[in-house]
């Protein structure tokens, strides 16, 4: 009986801490809504950037100042149209093997040879974090899809 008491207290404390952790993750979730859906505004889709400079200011401006932005690799090329009407299906996180490969097959081969089989480009080239000027290894900042 006496030996069990400290165990019981530890178990209780652990349960409390676990409960607290769960509660705070429920009331302040890391992502407010997982089931995000793009608003419909077809008359505005011609200019993704204008709206996105207001709703995702850092993301949009980082694109504009990156090599992709300067060379006008537009949003729809990677993300597709939000209403799904374009040739590229809409995706918040464009896949490496379906999208990037279209333009970067040689670079991807080179990456694999140099750095191993890792094809998570994101881990070295933070997509929307201004990879201009070859700051390939700049510390990764959290984004809305990956806190």
């Amino acid at each position, binding site marked *: 009986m006496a030996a069990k008491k400290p165990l019981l207290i530890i178990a209780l404390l652990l349960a409390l801490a676990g409960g607290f952790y769960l509660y705070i993750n429920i*009331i302040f979730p890391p992502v407010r809504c997982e089931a995000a859906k793009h*608003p419909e505004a077809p008359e*505005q889709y011609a200019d993704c950037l204008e709206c996105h400079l*207001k709703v995702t*200011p850092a993301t949009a*401006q980082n694109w504009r100042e990156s090599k992709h932005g300067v060379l006008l690799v537009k949003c729809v090329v990677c993300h597709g149209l939000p209403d799904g009407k374009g040739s590229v299906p809409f995706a918040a996180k464009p896949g490496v093997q379906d999208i990037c490969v279209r333009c970067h097959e040689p670079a991807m081969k080179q990456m694999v040879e140099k750095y191993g089989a890792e094809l998570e480009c994101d881990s070295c080239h933070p997509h929307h974090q201004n990879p201009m000027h070859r700051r390939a290894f700049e510390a990764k900042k959290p984004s809305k899809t990956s806190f």
Partner: protein
Amino acid sequence: MPGKKFSRLICGCIGLVALLTMSAYGLHATSSQEFCLSCHEMSPQAEEIRYSSHALSADKRPITCAECHLPAGFGPRFMAVKIYSGVKDAVLHFFLPDGGLSRAPLQARARRFVDDANCLRCHADLYKKADGKDAVSDLGRIAHDAYLGKNGQARSNCAGCHINLAHLPLFDRRLDVNRKFASRLQNKEALR
């Protein structure tokens, strides 16, 4: 045996009540502006806010840290944030090396824990501009529809779209949305 249990129960109850009254006082004191600013880590943020759109409330009173950063009232939401951030801030204050604060990861965490209800207390009508008179712009209407789930569903909370409302670290000053705020801070480069 049952008598002993009973007296323990009584002691527990008295202790709990004492703790609650003491902590009610403590909670008030540790939510005040002076308390937040008693740590040097918080001074750039407090300095920046004086040049932001949120320096003064509609009735010309300085807006306090707690109005945005702590959920209103003394409910469970408030307690949860208070315990979480209070313990973390205090521990890191004493164990973090000087100049160890990197503001980019702090922003993400702060955005997550700023309660939307706090913004809504001052901005009740999402279809009006901040002054409460004119209608919000077209893009604002679409974005707020998305926030409310009327047209699509946004991922962000208020602070996720409206970044740098009150504070502006150096690395965010180039952003277009911050042009006005940044110009007011122009000769204040020393602020990090």
